[in-house]
């Protein structure tokens, strides 16, 4: 451990005090509005952007993917570009405004409720809620693992204890404070993350001989790539992998497409569009969101790749060898060995903040999905609305327990995979009908339902029976058919997103064209434009009233 324990404890105490203070600010505002689910729909653009970014970028994006960049190289920067262009610009400017308006027009307070009401289907709402509640804990568990591993390496405390303390702290303010508390804390944590990453970038470049000098040193190390990686297409850390090689497929299909475009259909992110007061706020939020992602993912991947230069100079080994082949350990080891003591403490807080903000957003979304969407709207047909917040709180508590249990069970090197898997599933299941909901009025309830079912099932089928990365360790295909994957050749390398999403789109279009379109009156209501300064006059305010009536 490179950091003085008393300094670290002081930092952590101050940080936690700030977290709870800010969470309390959000909670106090919540109690005056309908903020538990949607933060009162009056959130400042900068807070929304920081919250979106902080929820988006987890510790696994920094530690897990930073480690992957140390192994595979700077080709991952395409993912950063996709994250900024699709994840921020297209998301905020193209998807955000209609989502906000339609969410308000239809009186929806969660993402599954938004698509459910848009297609007038409780099944869509219930099924989406269930899908999120079942599969998001996997992603949440990978975030918890990232945090636990980092605390273990930095503080030298027991991994299991680290995981437990970390979860209890987040659970306390998510369950009590609702979305506004979560977003306020996110914004504070996002600022801390910006500071930490800015220092990491400047420090790494200056230590390794400047921008060009550091890159050149890494370029010159191409001959040091292990033979096993060369055989799979690795051509150096500053070169794209060989076209059509296994590493090329991993990089392009899973990472770039899965996480890059998948972000558009992420429920915990899309719900944030509904928290601002007008369309212009979303466009303004781009000012903060774009550079934030660059400073998070961009810096993590560049530094991850450059850690090879540092380790080669100091130990004569590349990062992968220093970390004993475990990519998850590369970033923590680099931080602990290369950075000055005080800054390790600061950076540790940044990473803690990254994990906390992502986990908080996930817990809130999973809780609302299972409590509000699946249980109340799906199972109870909306009959028990009086206990909306109560059920959500129980839902949050339940999904937290599941996530922690998964964090104990999941294998070590799954951090980067679980994130990509969840995002891929979201893309196939939600992106076609979400786009249909926003931009194609001809989309019908039957089309959306079929697309949701086909997208999620085909994605899961590909994961379990074809895509080698999941199918082989899961062993389900082996048990049923006696072989590791159903298809051979290049197919097992192709990510589910590339198969299931086109299928889901096709289903949406074909079924919609074959069925009766929604009534013009309903569409007029859903797509109605709103004035920035008008009072909220919801046409279906029942669920809001339910939230208000509980006084949370």
């Amino acid at each position, binding site marked *: 451990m490179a950091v003085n324990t008393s300094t670290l404890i002081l930092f952590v105490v101050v940080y936690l005090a700030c977290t709870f203070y800010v969470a309390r600010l959000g909670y106090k505002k919540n109690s005056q509005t309908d903020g538990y689910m949607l933060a009162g729909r009056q959130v400042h653009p900068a807070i929304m952007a920081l919250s979106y970014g902080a929820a988006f970028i987890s510790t696994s994006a920094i530690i897990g993917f930073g480690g992957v960049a140390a192994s595979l*190289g*700077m*080709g991952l*920067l*395409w993912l*950063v*570009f996709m994250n*900024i*262009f699709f994840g*921020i*610009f297209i998301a905020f*400017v193209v998807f955000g405004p209609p989502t906000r308006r339609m969410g308000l027009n239809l009186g929806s307070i969660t993402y599954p409720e938004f698509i459910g009401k848009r297609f007038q289907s409780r099944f869509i709402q219930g099924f989406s809620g269930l899908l999120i509640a079942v599969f998001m804990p996997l992603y949440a568990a990978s975030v918890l693992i990232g945090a636990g591993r980092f605390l273990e390496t930095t503080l030298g405390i027991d991994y299991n204890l680290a995981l437990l303390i970390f979860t209890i702290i987040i659970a306390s303010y998510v369950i009590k404070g609702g979305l506004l508390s979560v977003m306020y804390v996110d914004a504070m944590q996002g600022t801390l993350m910006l500071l930490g990453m800015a220092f990491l970038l400047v420090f790494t470049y200056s230590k390794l001989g400047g*921008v*060009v*000098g*550091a*890159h*050149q*040193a*890494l*370029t010159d190390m191409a001959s040091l790539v292990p033979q096993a990686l060369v055989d799979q297409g690795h051509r*150096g850390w*500053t*070169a*794209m992998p060989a076209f059509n090689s296994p590493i090329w497929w991993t990089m392009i299909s899973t990472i770039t497409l899965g996480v890059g475009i998948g972000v558009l259909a992420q429920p915990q992110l899309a719900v944030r569009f509904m928290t601002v007061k007008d369309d*212009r706020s979303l*466009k*303004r*939020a*781009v*000012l*903060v*969101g*774009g*550079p934030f*992602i*660059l400073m998070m993912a*961009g810096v993590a991947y*560049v530094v991850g790749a450059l850690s090879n230069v540092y380790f080669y100079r100091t130990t004569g080994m590349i990062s992968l060898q220093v970390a004993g082949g475990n990519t998850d350990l590369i970033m923590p080891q680099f931080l602990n060995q290369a950075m000055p003591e005080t800054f390790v403490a600061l950076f540790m807080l940044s990473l803690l903040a990254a994990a906390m903000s992502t986990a908080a957003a996930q817990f809130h979304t999973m809780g609302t999905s299972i409590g509000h969407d699946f249980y109340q709207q799906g199972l109870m047909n909306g009959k028990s609305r009086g206990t909306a917040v109560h059920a959500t709180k129980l839902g949050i508590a339940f999904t937290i327990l599941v996530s922690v249990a998964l964090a104990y069970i999941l294998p070590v090197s799954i951090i980067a995979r679980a994130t990509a898997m969840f995002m891929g599933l979201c893309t196939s299941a939600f992106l076609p009908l979400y786009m249909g909901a926003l931009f194609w009025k001809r989309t019908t309830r039957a089309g959306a339902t079929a697309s949701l079912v086909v997208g999620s099932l085909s994605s899961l089928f590909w994961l379990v029976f074809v895509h080698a990365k999941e199918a082989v360790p899961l062993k389900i295909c082996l048990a049923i058919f006696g072989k590791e994957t159903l298809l051979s050749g290049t197919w097992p390398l192709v990510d589910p997103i590339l198969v299931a999403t086109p299928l889901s789109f096709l289903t949406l279009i074909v079924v919609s064209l074959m069925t009766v379109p929604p009534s013009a009156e309903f569409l*007029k*209501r859903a797509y*109605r*434009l*709103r*004035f*920035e*300064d*008008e009072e909220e*006059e919801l*046409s279906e305010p029942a669920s809001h009233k339910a939230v208000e009536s509980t006084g949370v």
Partner: protein
Amino acid sequence: MLGIDDPQIWLAYVFCVLSALGCMVYGALNWKGEDEEQTVKSNTPKATVQDQ
């Protein structure tokens, strides 16, 4: 360029920086236009929301 030989990589590096800068410019332009827009909105009758 930038100590990176493969154009597929340095292009990605440059695109990342340019897209972030583009976001900043776009956001700033929308921030700037706030006053005029607000005035126009507040002077406009709420005709299109009458169908509620």
